[in-house]
């Protein structure tokens, strides 16, 4: 059974749920209580569109133990049209081709398995758009 720690993150990881600050308009992802821009605490819910543009990227060749089987893989900071930024792996392409400016879609995928016979960790990966 997924632990509380895992299901607390489900809204952001499964559904890309974010929040827009009613004070300054900043979109925070994941949602948080205090706006990092204006310190406001009033928000409206919003979901990120499942697309974005790569701001910066790398290829992880020496990976953490749980990701060793997948290395090398690309990881990028992606900006969505709402102005939110998030970290994601970039899949379905040669990692070396992942560059700033690249348009991507965000797709729900299995990320890894936690521990021996542990829980499956899901989230969004970026894939080259169109």
């Amino acid at each position, binding site marked *: 059974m997924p632990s509380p720690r895992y299901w607390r993150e489900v809204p952001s990881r499964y559904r890309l749920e974010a929040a827009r600050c009613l004070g300054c308009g900043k979109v925070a992802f994941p949602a948080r209580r205090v706006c990092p821009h204006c310190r406001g605490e009033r928000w409206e819910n919003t979901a990120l569109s499942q697309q974005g543009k790569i701001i*910066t990227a790398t*290829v*992880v060749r*020496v990976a953490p133990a749980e990701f060793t089987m997948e290395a090398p893989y690309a990881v990028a*900071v992606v900006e969505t049209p709402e102005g939110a930024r998030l*970290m994601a792996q970039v899949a379905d392409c040669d990692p070396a081709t992942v560059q700033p400016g690249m348009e991507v879609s965000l797709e729900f995928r299995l990320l890894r398995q936690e521990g021996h016979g542990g829980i499956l960790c899901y989230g969004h990966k970026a894939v080259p758009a169109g």
Partner: protein
Amino acid sequence: MRDVAIVAAGMTPFGELWHASLRDLCVEAAMEALKNAKTDQVDALFVGNMSGGQFVGQEHLGPLFADQLGMSGVAAMRVESACASGGTALRAAFAEIASGLSETALVVGVEKMTDATDVTEILATAADQENEVYHGITFPGLYALIARAHMQAYGTTEEDLSWVSVKNHKQGALNPKAQFRREVTVEEVMSSSMVSDPLRLLHCSPVSDGAAAVLLCPLKEAKKYTDRPVKILASGLATDSMALADRRELASLDAVERSARKAYKMAGMGPQNMQVAEVHDCFAIAEICCVEALGLVEKGKAGSAARTGYTALGGCIPVNTSGGLKSKGHPVGATGVAQAIEIFEQLREEAGERQVEGARIGLTQNMGGSGASSVVHIFQKV
């Protein structure tokens, strides 16, 4: 606020010290500092350590080390700010003396990394676990993302990065305490294995064991312990967003800039007054971003600073004369204190072949995680 001075230092070699445990390392560095000050009494002990808990299953290092030093009873605490733990412990000790709560404070930065099997995962606990590490990023990966942004913004090249390593290895070759006492060529760096593009193995600081200790007291008491005390002119501590994705500008390190601004203001000085600096080159790109954030090199221009010798020994502002984290080694909790020791020795003219002639003012900058915390100290020859 009372003026505060460093009056003595002690340090283990940095490296893969198989024979030494976490407590052995602390005792070796601390006893050397105490002997140099010819004292065996301190009021308070500040331990800078990132993660004894994860590396060797040992928290509560304050009383453990006080005990091992034969000074059980003294005030003691551990201070943590990831790889900035050492510099941050120095800051806490500075406040302890400046406030008048204690008359002497021993700061020991220490990390025992080679007893652990999962160093990559442990270091990653300094980044945002839920939103970064969850996706498979590593520390070299985070700095690689910063490097790419800096290349994109300012045209910095892989060769620029490599010259930082070449410079720091050249300087570290002169440091008897350094983990890698050998020079490397730009070709060697650029042909070393890729860790996280564009960062190669020789752009990365190593996994190290080590400890470094300094003894602090009020400046007016300093002559009891040494005839060449070094005054701590300023301490600046600042933070930035934890997750890289939350930073608007990825090619700069705002926590470093903020910590420097606070320190310069407190010292009544600016970057132009600094004559020698130790900065946090956990990866080659970090030195480039840090010297820019510190104002030692113009923003966007630091790419070429190592290559041209601007930041080399003999240049306008020698950076990482100790060899830096790259060549000297990076036992994370020890690093910030070891930086202070390099400046302490430079200002006392004890740096031997690494000596910056006539240095009277120096700076240290120690950074946590991917730059979410930074602490700057400014020191002056008395």
